[in-house]
């Protein structure tokens, strides 16, 4: 396990390095990035001054090393709109995004497993067909459109749920105010429902298909037949013997899923006016606040790589075959 851990950490480090190279180069794709930082009416002198101040007059390799050094100190430049450190601005928006993605994740995983198992057990019946049609539709509907439809239907039409806004739980918790966090909880949950379901839907659809096919494969195995032959109750066979082995592909998927969820937050947060990193990125795009976009992309990617590493380790712990291979 230790050797595996070291190997994975090294690989993870390599990936993080790759991510920094790509985000760094992305900024230089269009040539001299100085023009992204100055106003359109800036004089040649202003541009040259800005270029020198931002370090864009240095060779690319020097700029990259500076970028890396800054990153290690949590410094990703200054936001053009907030006039403070871009990294700090991103961190300020992070708690709301964590609340949203975590709830969406729980929803997606929590529902996809029973749905997938149910479909696999009733293979070929209308129940299976219905769940699979739902899954296929879920994979084809753009999440932001689904969000808009939810707003129209549950918010505007039925007026059951709040259409936008956010009541913080994590932020007061992080500030040490537990009482406030608990008082906020009911309203926070109410505001969470629509955006969380919107983000979760795509993952839910894909994961239930995955759980279903994984379960179908496992249910044919000899040990499941043995378990049945021993006279175990069906629920025990399914949960204790089949599902335990069907877990594994699902666990890997969950890691990758976070990437989709993080990608989804940009649009969904915008629709629901959710004050997280996603909506911040949307606003930063419109204000052409490049350092802020870059900081958000680096941070979200870093979180994503870290989570995937965690999932891989979990995977190795669950299935010894992985770390021996």
């Amino acid at each position, binding site marked *: 396990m230790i050797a595996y851990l070291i190997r994975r950490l090294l*690989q993870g480090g*390599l*990936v993080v390095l*790759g*991510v920094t190279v*790509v*985000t760094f180069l*992305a*900024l*230089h*794709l*269009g040539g001299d*990035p100085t023009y*992204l930082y100055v106003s359109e009416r800036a004089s040649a002198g202003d541009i040259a001054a800005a270029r020198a101040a931002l370090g864009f007059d240095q060779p690319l390799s020097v700029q990259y090393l500076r970028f890396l050094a800054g990153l290690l100190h949590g410094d990703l430049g200054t936001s053009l709109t907030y006039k403070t450190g871009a990294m700090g601005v991103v961190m300020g928006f992070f708690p709301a995004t964590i609340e949203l993605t975590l709830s969406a994740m729980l929803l997606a995983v929590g529902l996809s497993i029973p749905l997938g198992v149910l479909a696999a057990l009733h*293979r*070929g*019946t*209308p129940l299976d*067909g219905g769940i699979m049609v739902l899954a*296929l*539709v879920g*994979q*084809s*509907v*753009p*999440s*932001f*459109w689904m969000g*808009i*439809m939810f*707003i*129209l239907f549950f918010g*505007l039409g039925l007026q059951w749920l709040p*259409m936008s806004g956010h009541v913080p739980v994590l932020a007061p918790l992080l500030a040490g105010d537990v009482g406030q966090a608990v008082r906020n909880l009911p309203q926070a949950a109410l505001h969470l429902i629509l955006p969380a379901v919107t983000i979760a839907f795509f993952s839910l659809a894909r994961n239930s298909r995955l759980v*279903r*096919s994984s379960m*179908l*494969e496992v249910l044919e195995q000899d040990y499941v037949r043995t378990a049945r032959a021993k006279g175990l109750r069906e629920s025990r066979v399914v949960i204790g013997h089949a599902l335990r082995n069907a877990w594994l592909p699902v666990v890997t998927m969950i890691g*990758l899923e976070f*990437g*989709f969820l*993080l*990608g989804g937050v*940009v*649009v969904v947060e*915008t*629709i629901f006016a959710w004050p997280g990193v996603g909506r911040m990125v949307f606003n930063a*795009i*419109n204000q*052409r606040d*490049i350092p802020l*976009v*870059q900081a*958000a*992309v680096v941070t*979200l*990617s870093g979180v*994503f*790589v870290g989570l*995937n590493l965690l999932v891989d380790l979990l995977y190795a712990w669950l299935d010894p075959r992985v770390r021996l291979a």
Partner: protein
Amino acid sequence: MRRMLARLWRAKFPIAAILVLLAVTGAAAFAPEIAPRDPNRQSIIARLAPPLTPNRQGRIDFILGSDGLGRDIASRLVYGARVTIVVGLAAVLIGGALGTLLGVLAGYRGGAAGAVIMRVADIQLAFPFILLAIMVLVVLGPGLLNLILVLGVGQWVTYARIARAQTLAVSQKEYVEAARAIGARHGRILRCTVLPNIVAPLIVVASFNLAGVILSEAALSFLGLGVPPTVPSWGGMLAESRDQLLAGRWWMAVLPGLAIALTALSCNVLGDWLRDELDPRLKEAG
């Protein structure tokens, strides 16, 4: 009865999917002939007309309603199909060609080049793609060509991984060895024995991928990183509908979204069917 339902489910849906895709492609190709009006013609007095609203003469000007600038939604939907089809197909072609080339190379030659290719693929997979696309488009600026390039280059990993795995498997086959034994060049072996045998799974991936690209394009257009506002696109129409949502102008949001969802759904249904047809082994696993 059950088996009949299953067959119906298998056969009817792909046909419907093909019809939908043909209709969308047809709309894109013959947009000027089909569209009832100029998609950019504004009419301030006819702003925000709900679908099927008669005008003073009792005629219906906008069958699917008009938007905030009084433009005809139906015409914009027809023209919007162009962006979806062009961007979708071009991006899948670019990604498919690039990915297949690199994947076959990595699988056939192996060695250091293969290892480097697969490592780069790992790095790209470790990135939430949409974030990378946002970053690149913000720097390069929005526009049709940039959108196609970003989406196309972003897809190569999907194809490269499958192409590599398939090439590895096919390279061990006797017929490849036979080709090698009679002294065929590498280029000929790849073209005549390897490629034809790995094409089927790649086509299946491409049809699922097309759905993914269409959804990504819509999301990027929605964020204002797609084609300019003067070019009608489904994602852009959804973005414009946001301001009218709370006023209850549902038609502006419902219709473009339906168009995106139906097109993507058709690609997914087609992919499901192709997978079952081309690779019967997968049929069993569902």
